Each structure stands twice: as C-alpha cells, then as structure tokens.
C-alpha cells in the first residue's frame, strides 16, 4: 500500500512539475554584445532544457545594438559589456520605462609570464607595444636581455578580440593596431599555460581561472601613474584590475514571468557554473 502511495505521489509530483513548466511559455529575445553571445547561448540552452515551453533567441551585434533594441522594444533582455549611458536612460524613460541592470558575470584577463621572469608588472601601454610587436625584447620593459615570444588565442576567440580592443587599441575606436603577425596563436588557454610554464621568453593572456603556480600573473596598471594590480577575483569584481569589466543584462523595467525566471537562472549557482565553462568570471566565486 505504502508503495502504491509513493508511486501515486511521484506521479502527482511529476504532473505538478509539468504544470509548473506549463506556466512559463513564450519567447525571450536577447540581443547585444558579441562577446556575450556564446555565454547567452549557453544559458539559453540550459534554460530551455528546464523550461521547454520557452524559446530563447540570442543574437549579437554589439552592446550598442543591444541598447537600441531594448529602447526600441525589440528585445526582452539586452546583453552588454558596458553600462548604459545617461542618454540611453533618458530615451528609455521617454518610452515609459526605466532599464534595470543586472550584473551577470565578469570578464577578467590575466597576463602571464614564466615564474623566473623578473618583470612583475606592466602598464597597458607597454602591453600594447609588446603585443603589436613594437617592443620585442624583455630588456625594454625592465627584464632580461631575451626576445619576447607572444602567445595569443586564436582569432575567433572572444578573449582575443577583447584583448585586441581593450589592450592593443586601449578601448579607443581611433586606433587600428593588430596583433603582431609573429604572435603564436594557440588553440586553447591550456596550450598558452603550458608554453608559458616552460618558456622564459613567453608572455600570454587568458581568463584568470587558468593561472597556476607554474605561471606568474603580472600586475597591470592602467598607466604609469596608476597602481599595479594583480588579477584576483576581488579586484576583478571591484573593477580595480584594469583588464576586466562587468558583463551586464538590462531589462525594460522590472522583469516578470519567463524573463525573470531566466535571470534567476543566470544568477543561480548553475547559471554561474556556465559562466565559468565559457571562460568568464562568475560574479560569485563558485564553491570549490
């Protein structure tokens, strides 16, 4: 009898779960930052598994595209890698809503060298000169008389693009510097880590999660007057570390229904694990 009861309860529970899922339906349109497209898609896939009734469409185009879609009412969530401008808030308020910001992940890149390399810190300008090939010897930045070997990710990696835009081009749109053709394009962050660990000439960059005692993460300063800051989770979260930025999501007004469920999922431990999987920094350090 007891067993029958259990089975009945199980099916009741199942029916309840199905009904609960049934409540969430419709579509969620997500637009914005190209850097975050993969992240958004990873979230969307996992979320759709839990809520088959909701279809989530993620498209890129850039943070600016995301904001204009949000204001124009053609998306439910804008994913952006910069904060909203006052002008954009004003435009949204004219339409009758105030965008709500959610910090969903962080993007922090460590610059790594061999542990025996005497160089401890570099400025963004020095990094740009090194990775574009203007500086080719460690002596020029206070190290030994050794050639610099540049290690980069493949060109399609978001990390590669981010590093190019924010370090090589210093976040400005009037600089068109490229990585030196001499840069070795490594297939994975792991490959960069291995080569850095065994090559005293090497300098590379990757998500801070990959840093181990076999490499030395450099302290980075915004300019010669600023403090040199090492990449750690606290300084990435606070924004003190210069090669990091928050990844954001904006909704038109307080989210509800499927959109709210999606954001809850994104901020849940499971959602933040996905953040790590696609090489970004979770806003809450995952329990290890």
């Amino acid at each position, binding site marked *: 009898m007891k067993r029958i009861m259990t089975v009945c309860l199980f099916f009741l529970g199942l029916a309840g779960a199905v009904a609960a899922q049934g409540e969430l339906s419709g579509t969620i349109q997500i637009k914005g930052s190209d850097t975050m497209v993969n992240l958004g898609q990873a979230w969307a896939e996992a979320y759709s598994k839990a809520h088959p009734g909701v279809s989530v469409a993620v498209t890129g185009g850039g943070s600016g595209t995301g904001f204009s879609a949000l204001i124009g009412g053609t998306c439910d969530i804008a994913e952006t890698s910069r904060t909203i401008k006052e002008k954009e808030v004003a435009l949204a308020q004219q339409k009758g809503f105030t965008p709500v910001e959610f910090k969903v992940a962080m993007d922090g890149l460590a610059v790594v060298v061999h542990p025996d390399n005497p160089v401890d810190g570099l400025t963004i300008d020095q990094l740009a000169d090194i990775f574009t090939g203007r500086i080719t010897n460690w002596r020029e930045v206070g190290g030994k008389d*050794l*050639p*610099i*070997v540049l290690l980069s990710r*493949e*060109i*399609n*990696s978001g990390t590669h*693009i981010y590093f190019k835009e924010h370090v090589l081009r210093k976040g400005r749109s009037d600089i*068109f510097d*490229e990585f030196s*053709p*001499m*840069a*070795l*394009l*490594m*297939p994975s962050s792991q*490959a960069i880590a*291995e*080569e850095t660990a*065994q*090559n005293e*000439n*090497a300098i590379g960059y990757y998500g801070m999660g990959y840093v181990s005692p076999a490499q030395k993460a450099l302290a980075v300063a915004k300019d010669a007057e600023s403090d040199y800051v090492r990449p750690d989770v606290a300084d990435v979260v606070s924004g003190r570390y210069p090669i990091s930025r928050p990844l954001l999501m904006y909704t038109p007004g307080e989210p509800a229904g499927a959109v709210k469920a999606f954001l809850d999922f994104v901020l849940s431990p499971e959602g933040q694990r996905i953040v790590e999987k696609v090489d970004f920094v979770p806003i809450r350090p995952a329990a290890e």
Partner: protein
Amino acid sequence: MRRLKEFLIEKLILLSGITVIVFVVLIFVFLLKEGVAFFKEVPLSDFLGGKYWYPISEPPRFGILPLILGSLLVTLGATVFAVITSICAAFYIAEVAPPRVRDVLKTGIEILASIPSVVLGFVGMVTLVPWVKSAFHVPTGLTALSGAIMLGFMAMPTIISISEDALAAVPRHFKEGSIALGATRWQTMYRVTIHAAKPGIFAASMLGIGRVIGETMAVMMITGNAAVIPRTFLMPVRTLTATIAAEMGEVVHGSTHYQSLFAIGIILFLMTFVVNVTADYFLHRARD
C-alpha cells in the same frame, strides 16, 4: 542460380567502387560551392599572394601565402626526415635483419602507425618542443622543425611498409646476378636493388607526403600557428590545415571568412590530389 548470385556480387562490388568515386566528386563539388563565392569578393591573386591573414579585422585581409609556405615548409622538412630514415629502415628490414628482428620491427612500425595524431602532438609538445628550444637556442620551441619531426614520425609507417614491399618485390636473380659478378652486399643494395625498387619507393614517399600535408592536430599543437612568412625551420609557422581547424569552430556561417576557409580547403584538396595522382602514377609504373 549460381550465375545470378555471381552477377549480383559483381554488381555490388562495382557499386561500392563507384560510391567511393561519387563521394570524392561530391566533396569537391561541395567545397567548390562554398568556396567559389569567396573569389567573387576577394581576387585570387590577393588570396594566394597576400602576406597577411587577419580574417576578422576591419577591413579583413585574406592572404594565405604565409599559410601555404608554412604547410610546404613543414611538409618538406617532414619528407626529408621521414624519407631518409624510412628508406634505411626498409632496407634493413627487407635485406639485412634476421627474421626474428624483422618481425619485431614490423610490429613496432604498425604500432607507430596506430598512435592517434593528437597523442603524438601532445607528446611532441611536452618533449620535443622544449628540446628544440634549448638545442637551437631559439626563443620558442614551437617551430616548423618541431612540426616536421613529429609529422615525419607519422609518415614513416606508410613509407617504410610500402618501400619494404617494393624492395621485397625486386626479383631475386637481380641480386644474385650482382653478387655473382663480385659486388658486395652493400654494393648490390645501393647499385642494384634500390634502382629496381625506385618507383615503389617514390610512390611510398608520395603517399607519406600526402598524409603529412593533410595532418592537422599535431601541427596545430606544436608549430606555433603564427601566420608569418617563414624564413628558417626554426620559426613558428601556421599551416593551411591548422587554420581551417582552428577557425571553423566559431566562424559565422555564410560570412566571407567562412567561405575563405572553404577556399583554403580547395587549395589543400588540389595539393593532396596532385601528390596522390603522382604517387599513383609511379605505383602503376612500378607494377608494369
């Protein structure tokens, strides 16, 4: 009844033969279909002669000259290394080795052939790469030379076993005649046997080269993938295959970059096609 059975079997075999050819043709048609659109946007001369490979920059640059030269350099190095070693090994196995040693060697070579290339690449990365770096005092061990040596190992089993067959097929009376005329065993080998087996050895080498040009995983891991025009064997190179493998994963479908990777595929297909047809020609000459 028996005749019908034979007729059916014959037609089935014919069909499987034709299927293989149909597949090759279909693959080529598919490559052309995806790749030809690319040449409407980028002239062939810019593609083959361009020195810079920046496919996702603004404006993009699709020059594959460094990639072609990278592939050729690695292939050349691997060929020289593999052919010399393999011919010596084949001679030893076919002419000199006592039967028991011969069996052990043949098994060993078969095992070498069965090692997956990603494993060889990994082994090369942690053993060969640091060795090349310290032995030649170069800034990084991720060079064309490392790739060539590793690929040489991959081509060896093919070259050794086909050359050995060719040597074994040299009619006995050739060798006996030579020895009867007073030549030593060594003189017989390099004056008589090798000439009689030449077309077979040549075909073996061409098939080995075919494998080397098309190899992807190992070269991607140990050649450094820097798209510069290589001047020496001790510089990093980027091969055609590694470019396709590294960039195909995240390219936007239908974009010029996507088409350019298919265009690289066409070039690669043509290169291996020429090599294989040459090998085939010599194999036939060896048999006639």
